[in-house]
């Protein structure tokens, strides 16, 4: 334990800028995964345990597309479209069969698919880890702000995350589709009775959630090594995020993700050996104080 390091950092603007931005960086990728998770839960009432696998597949799709075309835009597109389509198929063929039933049954289907996806990745892309490499466009020296260091690519990442967060918030509150989705999350029978095809709606929401996770994977691919099973730790962390923020709340996912990011960056200064434990501790405290999470009341 090293509280002095924490205090020293609070006294230095350079340290604060660097640590806060890196908290946001960790938080943004987490947010993209967690927001899909929370959206799917809010509307479909399904806890999608395969969400980490979508993140992993997104990264591998991006890796392959980047290798073929050399274009980072194409890589991101492949990650998003590929996982989005997969999400639709997955929802229609498999998840839709266990709606309303036992939560354990949903869990089991997801568990089965996690195992399958991990092995499929190993068969298709090999057991060894891979690295995509940073696109040339981002090979810039990092920016220096008030003495703190912010890499160009991470600035891009944070902007991406915030734009998506804002877009989602606007989309859900302003557009017709968004309103339908919110309505469906409150009362699916009513929406169905109004002549809206809920099956299609569900598939779209699930596909969109998968798309966001895949996009996060694509965005992570230049800086994280790719390996079968890589979706696992981010899945667990996204769960912590959604539980802290409140299942079904988009704002909660954003705040939760950033909080976890900050806990990680400042925790590593003050409590280097217990950073992981700190996250679980925080989650337990939130759950005990407010079981529905920080923003748990309003759904979607």
């Amino acid at each position, binding site marked *: 334990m090293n509280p002095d390091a924490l205090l020293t950092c609070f006294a230095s603007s350079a340290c604060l800028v660097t640590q806060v931005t890196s908290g946001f960086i960790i938080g943004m990728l987490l947010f993209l995964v967690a927001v899909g998770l929370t959206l799917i839960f809010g509307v479909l009432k399904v806890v999608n345990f395969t969400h980490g696998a979508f993140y992993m597949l997104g990264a591998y799709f991006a890796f392959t597309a980047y290798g073929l075309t050399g274009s980072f835009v194409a890589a991101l597109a492949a990650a998003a479209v590929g996982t989005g389509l997969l999400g639709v198929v997955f929802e229609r063929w498999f998840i839709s069969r266990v709606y309303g039933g036992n939560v354990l049954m949903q869990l089991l289907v997801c568990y089965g698919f996690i195992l399958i996806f991990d092995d499929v990745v190993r068969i298709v892309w090999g057991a060894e880890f891979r690295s995509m490499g*940073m696109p040339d466009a981002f090979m810039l020296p990092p920016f220096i702000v008030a003495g703190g*260091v912010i890499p160009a690519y991470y600035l891009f990442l944070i902007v991406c995350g915030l734009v998506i967060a804002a877009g989602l918030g606007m989309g859900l509150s302003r557009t017709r589709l968004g309103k339908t989705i919110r309505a469906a999350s409150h009362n699916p029978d009513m929406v169905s009775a109004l002549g809206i095809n809920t099956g299609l709606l569900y598939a779209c929401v699930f596909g969109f959630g998968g798309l966001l996770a895949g996009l996060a994977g694509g965005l992570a691919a230049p800086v994280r090594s790719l390996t079968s099973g890589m979706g696992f730790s981010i899945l667990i962390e996204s769960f912590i995020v959604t539980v802290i923020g409140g299942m079904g709340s988009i704002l909660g996912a954003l705040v939760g993700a950033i909080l976890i990011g900050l806990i990680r960056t400042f925790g590593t200064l003050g409590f280097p050996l217990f950073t992981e434990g700190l996250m679980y501790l925080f989650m337990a405290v939130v759950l005990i104080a407010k079981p529905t999470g920080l923003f748990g009341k309003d759904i979607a």
Partner: protein
Amino acid sequence: MTRKKSGLDRRSFMALAAGGAATLSMPHIAGAQAKTIRIGMPTILSGRVAQLGTSSRNAAMMEVEKVNAAGGLAGRPIELVIRDSKGQPQEAARVARELINTDNCEMLIDAEASTGGFAVHEVARDLGVLCMHTNSETSSLTADPKLRIPNAFRCCRQGIHDSAAGGNYAASIAKAKNLTRWGVVSPDYAYGRDTTAEFLMYLKRFAPNVEVITEAWPKIFQADYTEAITKLLQAKPQALYSCLWGGDLTSFIDQSAIYALLNQMEFFAVNMADYTALTVVKNLPKGIHSGNRYIKTFPQTPANAAWGDGYRAKFNEYPTNWSWQNALVVNMLAAAAKKAGSADGKKMAEALMGLKIETPFGADGTVTMRAEDQTLIGYAIGWGTTIPTEPYVPGVTPGDWKQILELEAEWKKSKGWA
């Protein structure tokens, strides 16, 4: 992506190997009972580090083929029975027991990582069969007399050797370049902690004015190193030590690159000079100091180059650090059987004590199974700096085994183990 490494491959290969051995075996043993000897090999074939397990399997099979062609273990052709433990210690224990009890294996090649290795060690203690640890580098496995058993040997690197060689090498650089303020980024588990502590102990011994000003301990398999990197940026050490490995090391390097972290300090990464990491990093920074893991240009001998190329030609991938260790063990067993004149585990264990064999992986062309603590010494060990293309680490400074052994003896004494 031409990867054909399925169980089917293995079985058909094994049938071939056994068949080939039977027909090729030398005339003077053809008359004797050339009964196949089964050797059990628990390793990690699935999950996160499956690549290491398959590279262990490949190397062992490649050598078994050669040994069988030359008559096998005292005339008995070897059949490897390879099982997946999924990297779980309780599975490693179960599989090891099953290999002996059900599959009639007479000895074990324990190709598990550390945790699984300790579990298999307990099985060997229980069942009394000959057991060769080929991948567990944790020093205590053989150095701690409380853990030692007469039937288990370590046929691979050992952490303390690497640290002694690395600490000495790093100290010489530190003194030449006046690097006094050091940072550490290592994985937070037993291997990472022990290796780092030992490395720093030797570094400070040879360069007493070195001080460690910052430490970051990311979790093993952590995907994101941003917090570690920014912490290091704040502290601005002159040199950085890391024993991250595999995908963790490459992630760390990729993420450091966008912070321009490694341009600001000398980087000592003991596990960098392994083909799995060297070939994966897209923009490998120049001048990373690393210990050798397996590299076909060190020792720079035709035998070593031929072995590395042979492996690559056969399996279409580079050998790993685990490959040479599992190749060596097969040769070690063959030599022990030859010396003992028998494929009996007990007699071979006696023959293994102090056994010295010729091998491409030896620092001077030989390695020795030290009798005193049943562990391997004299293998190729050295440090050098990286370049982004083949041969990746052009000049490796060999470690001084005489000094390594002295330091090791002293360390054992300090632990109360000698």
